[in-house]
């Protein structure tokens, strides 16, 4: 696996002012300064976003404090707001999406990169990338009118296989956390496939040839040599996919059932943070209610920090075992 290309070649410029201006001509420093500024923009944007979210949610924060995060009642009429059901729904649907999406996506990427003839591979990938452009609303409509009836039809089969767990118990009305998970899977697959495929294709042929020369089978080469090489890129695509599923609004709200309660079963309806903001923000009747939706945005931000942190720890621990 490639060591970071920067460690050996890090030409970080240093020097006094006049030498600095002289070196600016060479282009290295311009490149450094310009790209650094762009990278800093991200930090500036994030800081600004958090700042705005924070200042515009003072009302509910002062009123509820930390109980906002653990409360389970969402009652705008009574002025009672508890965000736990939304947090639960967001985490569960995203987890479902990743659980189903990663194997499907990476599997398809491997096939397209390693096994499919180039023309077919290019053509199919081109089409798959188009899926990323389908607006959330259309996924939502397809969800209600196509996926939900399909799942209702499939429900007995799913129950037969997985019905013994409490995860798949209880009545099923079509709109549920499970349906939301499936819709999210379809939405994140294009990112995983497209990026993973490109990264796998970029693995140098010598690596493959080396493994094959040592007697490895096709699969062993792919699993033990190519994939670890491409790991960082694949991980990157998964983080993109995770991000998309955490923030997805329209499609989720149309198939999740929009019930602000925590149920054990995936067949039950649920609610996610992004969905409730999308549903209710425009019509929020007073400043306090509007503030709660902004606070929910802040909560999601915090949730993303935690999930990303956990994911990174997971990645670190697996990398230590495998090829470095």
């Amino acid at each position, binding site marked *: 696996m490639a060591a970071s290309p*920067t460690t050996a*070649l890090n030409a970080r410029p240093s020097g006094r002012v006049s030498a600095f201006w002289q070196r600016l001509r060479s282009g290295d420093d311009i490149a450094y300064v310009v790209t650094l500024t762009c990278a800093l923009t991200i930090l500036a944007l994030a800081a600004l976003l958090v700042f705005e979210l924070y200042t515009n949610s003072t009302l509910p924060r002062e009123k509820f404090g930390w109980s906002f995060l653990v409360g389970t009642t969402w009652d705008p009429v009574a002025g009672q707001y508890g965000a736990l059901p939304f947090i639960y729904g967001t985490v569960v649907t995203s987890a479902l999406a990743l659980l189903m999406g990663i194997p499907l996506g990476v599997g398809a990427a491997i096939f397209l990169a390693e096994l499919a003839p180039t023309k077919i591979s290019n053509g199919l990938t081109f089409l798959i990338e188009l899926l990323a452009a389908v607006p959330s609303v259309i996924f939502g409509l397809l969800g209600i009118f196509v996926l939900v009836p399909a799942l209702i039809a499939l429900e007995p089969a799913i129950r037969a296989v997985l019905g013994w767990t409490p995860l798949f118990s209880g009545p099923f009305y079509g709109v549920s956390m499970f349906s939301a998970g499936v819709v999210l899977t379809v939405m994140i697959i294009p990112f995983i*496939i497209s990026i993973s495929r490109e990264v796998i294709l970029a693995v140098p042929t010598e690596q493959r040839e080396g493994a094959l020369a040592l007697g490895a089978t096709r699969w062993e080469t792919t699993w033990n040599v190519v994939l670890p090489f491409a790991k960082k890129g694949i991980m990157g695509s998964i983080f993109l996919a995770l991000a998309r599923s955490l923030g997805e609004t329209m499609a989720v709200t149309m198939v999740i059932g929009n019930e602000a309660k925590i149920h054990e079963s995936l067949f039950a309806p649920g609610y996610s943070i992004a969905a409730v903001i999308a549903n209710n923000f425009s019509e929020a009747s007073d400043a306090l209610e509007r503030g709660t939706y902004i606070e929910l945005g802040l909560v999601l931000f915090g949730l993303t920090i935690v999930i990303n942190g956990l994911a990174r720890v997971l990645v670190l621990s697996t990398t230590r075992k495998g090829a470095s």
Partner: protein
Amino acid sequence: MLSLTGVCTLVAVGTLLFILGYLFFHGGTSLTTDFFTKLPTPVGESGGGMANALLGSAKLLLLASCIGIPIGFLGGVYLSEFGGSSFSYIVRYTTDLLNGVPSIVIGIFAYILIVLPQGHYSTLSGGLALGVMMIPIAIRSSEDFLRAVPVSMREGAMALGASKAKTIFTVVIPAAKAGLITGIMLNVARVAGETAPLIFTAFGNRYWSPGWEQPTAALPVMIYTYAISPYADWKQQAWSAGFVLLMLVLTINVFARMILSKRGHVAR
């Protein structure tokens, strides 16, 4: 084991083709030229179109790309070529965070920052909101693909006496070209379909919107408005618009690839 990957592909591709086919049959087959040339008409009157929304989406995407792609791409260059310290780690982490922010929150953010001070909705604010969404995606994908270029290529260039900047711009970036374009296209595609941020910034417009300071119609917003209406012919137009949006993105995709690359990968 490898045959399993074939199954995965079948499932993924099958779903995709189903969606495209559905969109085509529901939306594409009832497309008329009116759609591309006329302004929207009230419900019940036939002959309406979404010409202003098409132009609006094009303008918004143009502005968003001009902001999001250069900043994101150069940021990715930094992370990949100059990074390696904890600072880059923070930047990468923050990028992933920003990617996860729901588009509606970005819309509210842009509303607070641009629409309120200006006192009115505008194409400019819409483009900026979309541009802000594009930056983190562009950084992440650019960095991924630049990193995938083997160190040997960089070393080769530097051994020949090229400066760091020259190496980056004449060796590394061209080598990663195919991937970078993929990343950009995915980015544009994703942002082209975003509705929520536009509701708070570009607002929507039933008429033509000259310049950048007035509210403008956009395809995703029209799709959303029409799809949730009670009227059959508006719902039909929503599907057509969905199909057209896809075709718009496809056209951008094809056009960009034609101009920017001879499709080639690192030599095997």
